[in-house]
């Protein structure tokens, strides 16, 4: 697989130093913004307003982190983000496991139409539904609840998860299921006892994608939850800025706190995330 690369770009960049340069470019491009925020979060306000600016913190401090937690209810923001993401992920997985199973295993008459519909939903601009969703949530009494976010977030991830899971289910031999059904398992029994456990990596991959989608969402969270106690992290972060002041070190600390949980998830499950992103869905 990589040998193909050698012969495409390889003749130009086959030397070790050039490969190192390529790695450096990739890493700096990908990680520098997060690294810079990390460095900023350790600087004092005094150091930050020096010119020329310092790159590495001279007197690293954790004061900004303490302030990030005391100036605003950062723990509450984290908790809200986490719960909304977790609950919408569970709901998404449940609904998309069922749908994907139907698409992978049954002879549906409208399968192509349903597939097209799923793809159309995956490109659907939720921002256009700001007004009607707002009114629907208000009518259902769901404004300022987690549910007001969980339902749209589930729709946000449903297409990607369904596509990822469909391709996973298709890769599981039907014989296993048939054997289970001959042994007296019902179809639902076979789904949850045989297919889902075998597709566990796929279910897990879909789950990570759904979680990250929810964790990142900003516009709906900004519009539907005016109650400070229900703010998610991306919305809460805005509150650090005063009317005139913009406390960058404290904001940086809060950003780092918000990046770390997802970064850990990504570091541990990187291969799965890549396979999920490239196999099933394209949204980002």
């Amino acid at each position, binding site marked *: 697989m*990589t*040998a*193909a*690369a050698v*012969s*495409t*770009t*390889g*003749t130009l960049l086959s030397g070790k130093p050039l*490969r190192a340069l*390529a*790695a450096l*470019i*990739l*890493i700096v*491009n*990908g*990680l520098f*913004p997060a690294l810079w*925020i990390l460095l900023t979060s350790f600087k004092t306000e005094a150091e*930050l307003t020096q010119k020329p600016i310092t790159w590495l913190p001279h007197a690293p401090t954790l004061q900004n982190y303490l302030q990030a937690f005391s100036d605003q209810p950062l723990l509450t923001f984290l908790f809200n983000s986490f719960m909304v993401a977790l609950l919408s992920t569970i709901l998404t997985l*449940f*609904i998309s496991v*069922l749908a994907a199973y*139907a698409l992978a295993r*049954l002879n549906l008459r409208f399968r192509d139409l*349903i597939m097209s519909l799923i*793809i*159309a*939903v995956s490109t*659907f*601009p939720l*921002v*256009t*539904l700001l*007004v*009607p969703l707002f*009114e*629907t949530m208000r009518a259902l009494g769901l404004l300022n609840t987690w549910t007001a976010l969980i*339902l749209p977030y589930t*729709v946000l991830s*449903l297409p990607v998860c369904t596509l990822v899971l469909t391709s996973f289910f298709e890769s599981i031999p039907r014989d296993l299921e048939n054997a289970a059904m001959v042994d007296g398992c*019902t*179809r*639902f029994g076979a789904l949850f006892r045989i297919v889902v456990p075998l597709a566990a990596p796929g279910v897990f991959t879909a789950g990570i994608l759904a979680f990250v989608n929810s964790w*990142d969402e*900003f516009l709906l969270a900004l519009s539907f939850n005016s109650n400070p106690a229900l703010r998610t992290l*991306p919305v809460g972060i*805005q509150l650090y800025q005063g009317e005139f002041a913009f406390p960058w070190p404290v904001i940086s600390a809060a950003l780092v706190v918000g*990046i770390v949980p997802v*970064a850990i998830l*990504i*570091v541990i499950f990187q*291969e799965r*995330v*890549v396979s999920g992103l*490239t196999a099933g869905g*394209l*949204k*980002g």
Partner: protein
Amino acid sequence: MTTSSTVAPATSGAKAVRARLSRLLDPDETTLGVLLLAPAAILLAVVIGYPVLRLIYTSFLDLSLTSGMPARFAGLANFRAMIDDPVFWQAAGNTILITLITVPGALVVGLALALLANLPFRMRWPVRLSLLIPWALPLSFAGLIFAWFFHSEYGIVNDVLRRIGLSGVIWFNSSLLAFAAICIAITWKASSFMAMIILAGLQTIPRSLYEAADVDGAGPVRKFFEITLPLLRPTIAVALIFRTITALQTFDIPYMMTGGGPGTSTATLAMYIHQNTVSFLDLGYGSALAVVMFIISMAVTALYLRMIRGGEGIA
């Protein structure tokens, strides 16, 4: 298919109950399909189907919560107001410009990153993470981080400019520079995902093609343009369409970086919809704006569906 036939004979009543039970637990193909797809269908009906109808209806209403007046049918008044609204044209123009700049921008940068990432590194994980972390970073965070990069006094961009002997500029005071900063941030955020998709495409190109080209004495440039690029076309096309639709919805990054300013010079259509709905509470006008965006997105999606139906599968 069903297991009821293997059940030992019992009294006819018990048999009927058991048959009905087993039909419920073990339905035929069509019933099962309906049951399995029902939760998804209900969710989509509540969150998309009904709201879309409601959106179209509201766009014909004069419905402003601040006026205190009840909703009134207004025909095409909202759409006519849009034509005379300079902010609408500015926001729509910015949205289209952002799309025209950042979609090809992310493609070029993403393609370059993918070609670099496809080199035979001994360790794959640092490269993989350097593409994944920007994808996982929330857009709103990326907006804040780039606002800090472009800070006029203490931002690293101006610092670098000063170090190489140029003078720093006040990025967010000029509409042109603020717009450029926004486009840079969006291109950075989008290119990593683009690179991941293209990288996956690169890895499906059979090695034998390059070997054959080697035999023919083709150089790396010719191989790139005659093998790599043509074979990547379906992958790139799919990635471009998704990127286009996402770019049309741009909100988070300009909202965090400039708030649409200076004035409304960097506002996007999504920001203007949000402002009319949430700040001005002019639900009628906000809906009419949303209908315009909806039509544009659906047109792009239709194009996309036609393309993949035309035989080019999803990556």
